[in-house]
């Protein structure tokens, strides 16, 4: 099972926090995030992507599997039921999905649209277990739901300006447009 997924930047600021096995309080959550960050940030990129025994709050055999892309660390905390190399591939799939949804995604996209990052992740991992690994199926669901969200707001006949403001944000950007097939990610 995957105990938690976090994305932090090089200075330790969290960009996505998803705990599948909860800890007791907000303070503990922040302390776990800090712990994961401090351990991972000391390792240069030449080291292996595995760290053992960092987060005892989640149990004994919990391993951190992480990847470092430019300014961001993607960290998955898993137990012994998960395949080490498989999870590394999964992180890649997650990043690819983000790249396709945000068109050459960078940290700023994650900062300004953290909720959308959650929606993407929810199509890949649910309840701490892997839901889907096929990138086209993942992207299709995200695209469909994005369109549904836009449509649901278009139905309004409210003329208030704040509504239009929200609609504008959700409407015209990446989700409603077709996905370009650009290779690689440009973090």
């Amino acid at each position: 099972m995957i105990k938690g997924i976090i994305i932090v930047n090089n200075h330790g600021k969290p960009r996505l926090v998803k705990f599948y096995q909860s800890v007791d309080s907000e303070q503990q959550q922040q302390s776990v995030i800090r712990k994961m960050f401090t351990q991972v940030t000391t390792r240069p990129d030449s080291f292996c992507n595995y760290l053992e025994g960092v987060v005892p709050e989640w149990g004994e055999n919990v391993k951190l599997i992480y990847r470092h892309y430019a300014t961001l660390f993607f960290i998955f905390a898993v137990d012994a039921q998960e395949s080490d190399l498989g999870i590394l591939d999964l992180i890649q799939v997650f990043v690819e999905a983000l790249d396709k949804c945000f068109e050459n995604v960078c940290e700023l996209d994650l900062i300004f649209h953290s909720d959308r990052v959650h929606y993407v992740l929810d199509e890949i991992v649910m309840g701490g277990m892997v839901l889907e690994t096929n990138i086209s199926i993942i992207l299709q669901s995200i695209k469909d739901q994005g369109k549904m969200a836009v449509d649901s707001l278009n139905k309004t006949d409210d003329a208030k300006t704040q509504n239009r403001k929200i609609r504008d944000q959700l409407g015209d950007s990446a989700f409603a447009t077709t996905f370009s097939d650009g290779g690689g990610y440009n973090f």
Partner: protein
Amino acid sequence: MFEKTLQDIVKGIRASKRDTSLYISQCIAEIKAEINSSDMYIKANALQKLTFLHMMGYSMTWASFATIEVMSSPRFAQKRIGYLAASQGFTQGTDVILLTTNLLKKELRGAAVGSSMTGIYEAGLAINCTSNIVTEELAQDLLPELTNLMTHPQPYLRKKSILCLYKLFIKYPQGLRLTFAKLQQCLSDPNPAVVSCAVNVITELSDTNPRNYLHLAPAFFDLLTNSSNNWMLIKVVKLLGSLVTEEPRLARKLLEPLAGIVRSTPAKSLLFESAHAITRCLPYCRKSDGSMPPNVSDITALCAKTFQDFVEEKDQNLKYLGLVGFGSLVKSFPRVLSTSNYRPLILTCLSDEDVTIRSRALDLLPSMASRKNLVGLVVQLLQHINFASGTYKLELVAKVVEMCSGEKYALLQDFKWYLDILFQLGHMRGLDDHAELLRSQVCDVALRVLPVRSYAVKRSMETLLEGNNENYSSKDETENILDADNGRGKHIMPEILRALAWIVGEYSDLLPEAIEGPCHSVLQAITAPTNSTKLPTSTQSVYLQASLKIFAATCANSQVTDPELEACVHTISCNLGVYMESTDVEVRERAVTLNGVLVAL
């Protein structure tokens, strides 16, 4: 009024360099006002902002009721926001979870009835949220609807409901018994992703209770041989590996198919998992008559080669996994690593900069040792110890001692050499945490191994006498009391000195063979206050006792002359004065006793 959007808050936080927390408190105050608004847009917007702030550590428990309101919005965009807030913010103790039951039931039923994509995705949202917030009551209530969705025409919902059911089973175990048959059917689902999810759930379940899932083994065998989906194969392999602890016959049957995968698959992930599963099977392969099946040695060799290839790779991840694999292999075949071609490989890993790799290599060390190679191995390790520092150094030393002393010194042939090693370690700096370990080892060897005793006494003597050198520099006075630097730059731990003194005292009948000088110098070395007062009182008390024993042996020794005896008595009585004033009770008692004995003579 224009309410701030999520993007506005983010911009605001980035702009407010110095007073970020002030800005955020302002935002939270605004959110508190907005969230009570009757306008769903404003409410949803506020909740969206709050979810973002929750990631930074701000509590959102006060907004749980509003969360439910937003969850029930008919507009998908807002509903999403509500569900996300619930997944992030609700805990097991959130009381409003009870209010979600009807809403969730409605969503789940809505997907079953119609087939519009809206309904499907809304149910998907509901399932996702449930998997994160489910409590026992909620699990009981939603079980029927979720079970129904396991056979929905859309694979999207089948996948999600299967995974969500696992979370329900954790809270409501009874549910598993009721739905197990259906779960089993999912293993034959035409969609591979659905089957993967079912395998995933059964893997998690069998972690706690392998016995209950043994009867599914044939189905998994089927999947093993017929599937080509790597992700699913990995899961199946892992599952079968965990089932062998319950059913040893399964182990023998698994060897060939797994070996087949190892030989043929190009995917490194599957290769590793299969080889690892083989190592889990190997301990159980012995037949009831005690013999091994014929293919075991080939397969063991295959595993060892696979892991060796991994360790030799430049990719650090593969290296790490190779070491993990070896660690698992030596549990059933401890001798596999003791052949010489693995030694340089693993020792190189010991000096790797990466602490993860180093600790794995460290765990492999005890299995690498054999009677023949122990000496060479330990010598190489001592070099590593010299360069190491901190906890890693301590771990290395502990491993060396473990290898040498394991199973009552099974591997050790030359105890004199071992004593030398122990003395060498005793002189090293930075090993204070292991002082007790080394001390007990030295005493143990001297105690048990008779032929080596006199050698032990000899070495102990030499070391104690070294302490007698009077070349103290002024900086020694300020040194830590535990750092018994005897002035010649040779550091030795006080606990070791205790051992040495004890050995000399206990076996003092061997002294005349051991040293050439008069016994007097020994007594001087032990009792002189300049040497000993810096040592901890436990060492001092042993010194005193030892000096009595040595004195007794000297008296018993007919070769010792009278003037020498008198000199001994004189030395001891002079030096005792300091000890009799000592604050430690034990030291004082022994000193006084000793004094009494001498006076009586």
